[in-house]
C-alpha cells in the first residue's frame, strides 16, 4: 500500500527542496545574457500570458509556464522566452478567468516591458 505523506510534511519537503535548489543548483550562470521580462502592473494576477505578432492571432506558448507557480502577480516579473525583438499583441488570462488584450506591445530582447490597467482592451469577464 503506498505510504501517504501529510500536507504539512509535503509543504516542508517542498520548502527544503527549493532551499537546496537555491543554495546549490539554481544560481544563474555568471555572464548570462539579460532576460526579457514582463512586469505586471495591471493590478491583478495573470495565470496565462501569450504573445502574437501585432495584428495576428498566432498566439505563442503560455509564458506563465516559465514561472515557478505558473502565474505572475501584480508588481511581479515574468521571464519571457523565445520572443525576438518586435511588436506584439498580448493576451492575458487572469486568476478569476477574465481575459484582456493589449495591442502593439513593444518587446526588446533582454529588456523589461510593462503593462498597466490603462493598456488593457477587449476585456471579457469570466
Amino acid at each position, binding site marked *: 500500500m503506498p505510504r501517504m505523506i501529510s500536507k504539512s510534511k509535503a*509543504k*516542508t519537503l517542498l*520548502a527544503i527542496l*527549493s*532551499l537546496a*535548489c*537555491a*543554495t546549490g543548483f*539554481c*544560481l*544563474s550562470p555568471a555572464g548570462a545574457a539579460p532576460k526579457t521580462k514582463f512586469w505586471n*502592473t495591471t*493590478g491583478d494576477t495573470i495565470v496565462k500570458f501569450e504573445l502574437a505578432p501585432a495584428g495576428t492571432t498566432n498566439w505563442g506558448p503560455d509564458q506563465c509556464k516559465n514561472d*515557478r*507557480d505558473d502565474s505572475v502577480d*501584480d*508588481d511581479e516579473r515574468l521571464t519571457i522566452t523565445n520572443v525576438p525583438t518586435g511588436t506584439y499583441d498580448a493576451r492575458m488570462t487572469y486568476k478569476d478567468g477574465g481575459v484582456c488584450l493589449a495591442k502593439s506591445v513593444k518587446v526588446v530582447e533582454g529588456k*523589461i516591458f*510593462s503593462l498597466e490597467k490603462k493598456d488593457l482592451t477587449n476585456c471579457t469577464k469570466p
Partner: protein
Amino acid sequence: MTKISKILLFGLALLSFGIAAAAEANAYVIFVSNEKDDTVSVVDSASLKVIKTIDVGHRPRGIIITPDHKTIVVCLGDDGQIAMIDANTFKVTRKLDSGSDPELLNISPDGKILYVANEDDSLVTIMDFATGNTIEEVPIGVEPEGMAVSPDGRIVVATSESTSMAHFIDTKTYKVLANILVDSRPRYAVFTADGSKVWVTSEVGGSVSIIDAKTYKILNVIRFAIPGVRPELISPVGITFTKDGKRAFISLGKANRLAVVDTSNYNVIDYVLVGQRPWHTELSPDGSTLYSANGETNDITVVDVASLRPLKSVPVGRLPWGLAIRP
C-alpha cells in the same frame, strides 16, 4: 490704538511667530521610493508638498535611513546596485554594486554593515557601508525579500518569498541558525524593540507569524477578516510598530487598508482605509503620524496614530513602495 491694544497685538504676533518656529523645528522630511518612476520623492512634513524628486536609478524599492540620519540608502532592483542619497542635500553621493536585484535592505545598529536581499540570486549580501565592499554572501531560500536586524545587531532575519521561510543568520559567523517555515510568500520581517520576537508577514498566506527569536518557535499567527473584502485580497506586507510598541500597523496590500494590531494579545483593533495597495509604512519622529506608501494610487496617506484616522493623501511618483524619514 491704545497702549493695551498695542501690547496685546505684539503678544499675539510673538505667539504666532513662536508657533511657526516650533512647527518649523518639528518639521521633518519624508523620502518615498517610486518603483516605476525610478525616483525618490522628497516630501516636506509641514507643507506635505513634494519639494524634490531625485532621479536615483532603476526600480527603487527598499529604502532606509542610516542611524546617524545622514544618508538615505535605496535598493535599485534593475541596476543591481544600492544608491546613497545625502539626507540634507538630496544628492546621490555614491552607488554600490550589491548583487542582482536588491529588493529590501537593512543596516546594523552601529551603521557599519549593510544587509541586502538579492531576489534573483537567493542570497543575502553583507556589505561594509564605508568601503562598499562585499564581506559575505549567504545563500538562503528562493527570492529573498524581508530583512530584519536585531536591536543588538547579532542576528539578521531574511525571508524568502518562494521558499516561504524566515532564515535566522548569525552576523558574526554568517551561518544560518534556523530556517522557519511560515505561510506563503513572506515579504517582510521586523524585530520587536526588545529583540525577543520577530514578526513576519506572509502576502499570499494572508497572515503575520510571530516567532520567538531565541527558540525559533512560532508563538502566534495573526489572520485578518474585513467585512466586504474578499479574503484573497488581504495580502500583508509592511509592518511598523508604534513608538511605545503597543500597536503594530500591518499594510494589507490589495485590501487597501492598514490593520492595527494590539501587540499584547495580537488582536486586530481596527482597519484604516488608505490608498490602493499599501506596501510599507513609516512613523514620524514623534510617533504621532504614520505615512503609508500606496502602490496603485501613486500617493502616500497621512494617518493620525492616536485617532487612527486617515488625514490626507499626498501625490508622489508612480508605484510608491517604501519610505524613510529624516528627523
